[in-house]
């Protein structure tokens, strides 16, 4: 029988609780090694450009997967989540991605694209970003529905 380390804590010699200040945890369920992410204040990221530092995969509407490749320049226009903080990004094609902030590097001023290139990349994705409209907690898109509706394919009929 394992020796209990004390009282109601349930601690045993082979099972030691996390300690205060511990930065990294291992999930008993998923085995995932997890550490805390933090997000900066919104004005450091909203309406700013950033670079994806790891390929991002997402299920495509209607099956399959789509990839936002490493090195892609994106435009950030929203933030969500605290445990897994994510930035809402638009890529150069105007597609919406929510990307964990650990996979995003903000573009420093000196690293920014040339004015001409930046304008070109941002032309498609900044059209409705001067004023934000929300239905509940969800961004309203240019057609009046959710922003994601702009590229939405219905699940049953597979049409836009």
């Amino acid at each position, binding site marked *: 029988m394992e020796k209990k380390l004390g009282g*109601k804590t349930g601690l045993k010699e082979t099972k030691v*609780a996390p300690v205060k200040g511990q930065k990294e945890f291992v999930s008993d369920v*998923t085995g995932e090694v997890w550490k805390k992410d933090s997000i900066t*204040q919104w004005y450091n990221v909203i309406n700013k450009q950033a670079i994806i530092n790891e390929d991002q995969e997402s299920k495509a509407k209607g099956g399959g997967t789509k990839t936002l490749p490493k090195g892609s320049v994106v435009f950030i226009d*929203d933030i969500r989540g605290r445990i897994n903080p994510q930035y809402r990004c638009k890529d150069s094609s105007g597609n919406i991605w929510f990307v964990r902030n650990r996979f995003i590097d903000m573009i420093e001023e000196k690293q920014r694209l040339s004015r001409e290139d930046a304008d070109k990349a941002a032309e498609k994705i900044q059209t409705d970003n001067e004023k934000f409209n929300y239905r*509940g907690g969800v961004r309203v898109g240019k057609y009046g529905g959710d922003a994601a509706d702009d590229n*939405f394919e219905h699940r049953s*009929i597979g049409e836009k």
Partner: protein
Amino acid sequence: MANSHDLIFQNALEGNKYDVTPDKNMRNTTIKDEKDRQNWLKNYKPHVYEKMQAFPEKIANGESIAIIQFQYDYLCNMDCEHCCIDKFYVPRDWEKASGRRKFEMEDVRRLSNEADKMGLANFVITGGEPLIMRDFDELVEAIDPSKFYLVTDSNGWNLDLKRAKHLKQIGIDKVQLSLDGITAHDHDTFRRKPGSFDRTMKAIDACKEAELHVILSTVIWKDRIYTDEWREFLEFAKEKEVGTYIVYAKPVGAFEEIGIDSMMTEKEGAILQKFEEEYDIFTHMTPSYGRDIGCIAVKRMVPISRYGDVMPCPYQHVSLGNFFEEGLKPIIDRGLNIKWFDPKKNMPCICGVDKGFIDNVIDKTYGDSEVPVRYDRVFTEDDFVKNDNMGTVEKGSGTGREVETWKHAPLITLKGKKLKDHDFVNDAI
């Protein structure tokens, strides 16, 4: 259920803010069993008692008897790995800058009035962590405890004896404490908060000492049910004489990636039912009001987000409509008109075990989806019982193909007792 709540209201009614005329006799009432609890409700919250009495009839009429699960704020002091609501959180500074409309106290009062008019009798304050809300007391007052059986969720971190007594005084009827492991290691790792286990232990004792009704809430996934830890957990709850509400792990939120292999199956559900015979545990699927209504989405539960979105259940991040744009009743009626939530059908826990529903509906809320996803992006005309009250869902959408799951779902039937004999208030609280 067996609870020891002797002399539960002797001190708590003193100085109560919300009910200025409680039955004087109730001051000396002792709660020895559930019959006493019913008597208490009848005398202390007669309006709530009356509404609950009408529940069986409302179920029979296909109406909702939903608990309002009110996600007033998503702030939290923990980082639980199974958090289902993380995607709804928006940093305060950005929330303000972005102009999202959120609940103000006036909106809460309107919600409370509309729910009351619909005959709904239960309110659960959730989050985030409710007990870190600065305006928690004001929120309770706005909901109006005289109109509802009022419950708050909590992780117990900020719940000492003084707070427990205060909660009782302002009108909280029950605290649902989260406990996700019987050892500090299991709980603290799962909650990613060293010290949280000890705080929860103290919170249980504080609630019992303050004679505030307390139950535990724990998440179960496929593997956990076979562990010694699970048995130890149940023994612990039994020893403490607290009931345990068991939440099935769902592949949503921060737990999105656990995959279907980690989820409960019918086999584990059957094992859990066996445990129910031995321990004071229950799930959202436990029969109530004399009927086994199966999945409680919309019928017995509607979460409302901080931003006004009304959802079918806490794990289906689909908005049936927004409270700020429509009233509560039209939104709930629309939900009941969707076949998955048909009040006449006894569905399984559709987002917990129904792969068809997960593929067709829950899948649309995964990954880089903006949540909650609006209902017209998920449901088609095929999903509706009647082709009216569909909101913005277009007529003619869909393929006309029926979804097998709800097509073959059994009708809800009376279980065992006659409705008039059923212990409906006990079920409700």
